[in-house]
């Protein structure tokens, strides 16, 4: 509570009238004692994110993924996003770690104790270089992620509808329609092209495009073939579509990914990806009239 001021005093920081050339200023900046450790921590963390990206995929691939081109694209996106987000994590962590841990001459310093310290720190109100660089860098990063995401989305949308090169051509297998119906708490799969046979596990031939017409008879479910990277809601009163081309033999998981009531946790089944011959045999056993 000081003496009365009628008009507020405005203290403008004085602009240096004659600033040195940018290269000189950069050089001077890099020679400051705290810059080198921060840059080193940044570099280490950024590099550490590259192996870390494969750790992320290692967890995803535990049960046999990727088993389709869609899942391969998804994993590629995760790999790229992890590596790209490394620098951001690195800058943040480097400043935090340096501020917390650095000791000795030239470091920023710390004060402990009960009494408020009255030693002030440098009054940096802003720094246009840092602000512009940050905005530019994050904008470029966001733009890259958006463009990458859109291209990938277009790719997996095309993949979902059977445009994979390996399955195209004159002898390409005919796509199989499968009607998926969710109900509390089972999945039912119907093969209209194979004489309307229906089953509660999904059996499909390898390298054949599958089209799913997904619906529900009661509440919202979510049809998720984990290792194939397929996911779409099963809505009552509407049919949603998606598709995939399995490219790996084996048995994979189908789960419900939308809370659908009492036994949501148990609304699981399997997808068996088999060879074309095995599939034809299975259709015959099930009493199907016509095979693809």
């Amino acid at each position, binding site marked *: 509570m000081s003496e009365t001021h009628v008009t507020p005093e405005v203290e403008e920081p004085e602009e240096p009238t004659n600033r040195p050339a940018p290269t000189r200023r950069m050089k001077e900046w890099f020679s400051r004692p705290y810059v080198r450790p921060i840059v080193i921590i940044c570099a280490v963390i950024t590099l550490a994110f590259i192996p870390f990206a494969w750790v992320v995929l290692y967890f995803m691939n535990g049960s046999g993924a990727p088993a389709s081109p869609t899942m391969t694209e998804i994993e590629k996106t995760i790999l790229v996003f992890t590596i790209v987000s490394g620098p951001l994590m690195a800058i943040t962590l480097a400043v935090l770690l340096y501020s917390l841990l650095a000791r000795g001459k030239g470091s920023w310093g710390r004060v402990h104790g009960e009494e408020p310290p009255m030693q*002030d720190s440098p009054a940096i109100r802003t720094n246009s270089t840092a602000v512009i660089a940050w905005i530019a860098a994050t904008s470029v990063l966001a733009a890259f992620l*958006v463009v990458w995401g859109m291209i990938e989305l277009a790719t997996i949308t095309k993949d979902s509808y059977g445009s994979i090169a390996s399955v195209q051509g004159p002898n390409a297998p005919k796509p199989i329609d499968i009607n998926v119906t969710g109900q509390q708490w089972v999945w039912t799969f119907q093969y209209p092209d194979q004489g309307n046979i229906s089953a509660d596990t999904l059996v499909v031939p390898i390298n054949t495009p599958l089209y799913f017409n997904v619906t529900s008879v009661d509440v919202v479910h979510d049809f998720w073939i984990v290792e194939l990277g397929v*996911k779409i809601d099963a809505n009552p009163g509407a049919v949603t579509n*998606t598709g995939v081309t399995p490219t790996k033999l084996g048995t994979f998981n189908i789960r419900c990914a939308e809370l659908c009531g009492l036994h949501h946790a148990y609304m699981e089944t399997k997808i068996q990806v088999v060879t074309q011959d095995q599939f034809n045999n299975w259709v015959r056993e099930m009493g199907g009239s016509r095979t693809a």
Partner: protein
Amino acid sequence: MSATLTAAAPPHVPQPKQHGKPGGFLRHTNIFTGLVTGIVLAALTYIIGSHWFVPWGTQNSTYNQVGFQALIMATFIAWVIGFMAGIGAFAGPIRWMLGHDLTHDDAEYMAGKHQGNWRYFKYTTDHKVVGIQYLVMTMVLFAVGGFLAMMIRTQLGVTWTSVFQPNFYNSIIGTHGIVMVIAMIIVVSGPLGNFIVPIMIGARDMAFPRLNALSFWLLFAAVPPLVANLFMGGIRDGWTVYQPLGAQAPIGMIGYQICIITFAFSTGIASVNLITTIVTMRARGMTWSRVPIFAIGILASSIMGLIWFPMFQFSQIFSMSDLALGTSFFLPTRGGSVWLYENIFWLLGHPEVYVIVVPASAALLELMVVYLRKPLFSYKLAIAGFAGVVGISSLVWVHHMYMTGFAPSVGYPFMLSTELISIPFGFIVLVMLGTIWRGKMWTRLPMLAVFALLFDKVVGGITGVYLSDVPVDQYMHGSMFVVAHFHYMLMGAGLFGAMGAIVYWFPKMTGRMFDEKIGQIGFWTAFLAFQVTFMSMFVAGLQGMPRRVMQFDSAFRVSNWISTIGAYCIVIGMLIFLYALVSSWRSGKVAPGNPWGSKSLEWQTSTPVPLDNFPVLPVVTEDLYNYGIPDPYIETEERLAQDDNEGVVV
């Protein structure tokens, strides 16, 4: 900020006539009369209603159910109205109808003058009382939500058996979610927004003191119906209560819906109050370029709350009328649309995240300058960040619905808007980093909370970028990865930030110093355990574990065991922190008026804060955050420039 004290003689204003004792009807009302009136009115409604509805309902099994749901709805509405009437919320309007104006003595009685601690149990208008009420309410809600979280983690950790029935498990998931969302929405804006913001901007109270009391007691009235749902069949649908699953629910669902509708009223009223206070009641000299960043953050979050909470409210009004009155907004069998519900719900659902994270971040921006003794780095960039978040937050809701199939091509624009919001959010990160940059840090708990918040926010932000991408979301949607991501944002950034903020303003609010030794132990135990719990949950999500399941594939066992152990350690840390909070509040060291050496207005008044905050209203005469010494490196730069001029090579 140095303040100027000038006393101007108040102009003569004709005073209204005093009717009876000051306070009038409100002298006889308190929380207990509210509870009694609420319960009596609810019981009467139920008894009378059951006599009217049951004979009509027995004609038809469907109508029977519809009648019963409507009866429960009426009962809960009667509880809310009865409680508000009993505590005296309608005294003001009735007084006006009788032609009695409030006198100065009435207003002072309503602000809780000479009522001791009893004022915390009454319809008190003083913003400081409301702030403390909110603080206690938040702690109660966190206790309830945390207890439910432990039940969930116990079930998920005990992989070899089943602790709960599936129905009850699904109910505790949903109740945990909504209790925690409510608690997180109010944890900063409630206690600190009400207690601190008016003092910080140099006002004597909020703009609408009686609305302030109304907003708190509406929140209070909203909680019993929510808790009651657990004993009425529960909400078995997660906190989102997607339709038409919600329509299958037992009557507990009505409790949830009444809670949300009432809570949205409470939040809307509180938002109007905070916005008006910050816009119109700032001290003389506090121009827009001198508004503390915390007030800006509260303003931003109130704007989002005011615009988007009605969406949440309407989603629940419509689905309650589906359930109780037989309409079919969201029931596909009768021409409704499930996608309509999802859209209306997420129109609030995403801005709500920023309603939580923005005030916590703003509070830490406000306090870190005090511990670093340097001005906020690029104050205007921080404002741009908040403005950007408020703007873009309204355009991103569909990223919760990428996999619903309601319009596959809508993924492209919403992927763009969702990733755009990371740019203004990055501004806040830069402002924090820039303020830490070269600062000599005073290592107190609130300052260290900045580090916790920044780390969690960056982890949450990066995983958020994954989820904003449609192809990645095709794998992650509905998995534990999403759960871990939003806990990093809401708990990691929101709650740990709020804990730091509460410790910072604790001396002003309670008049006692916070016991930091014990507090730090609790805080860091909880923080480390939090990393263990949710990092491990990220792994479960990557492995393909769906959320909201009670039993799962054996592949996810190890990560769930680790998560459960971590969760129990979080509780230990939180209990230690709570102990520090309660014991400091009861018997801590008496706090001086300005223990941190801060220059902002709220620390310039005495502690405990007098009823009208300042003996004389302050006038702001200095720029914001006037800490710091001239930068020594600028001198180096000047020397370099001089060398250049003289042609000397260094």
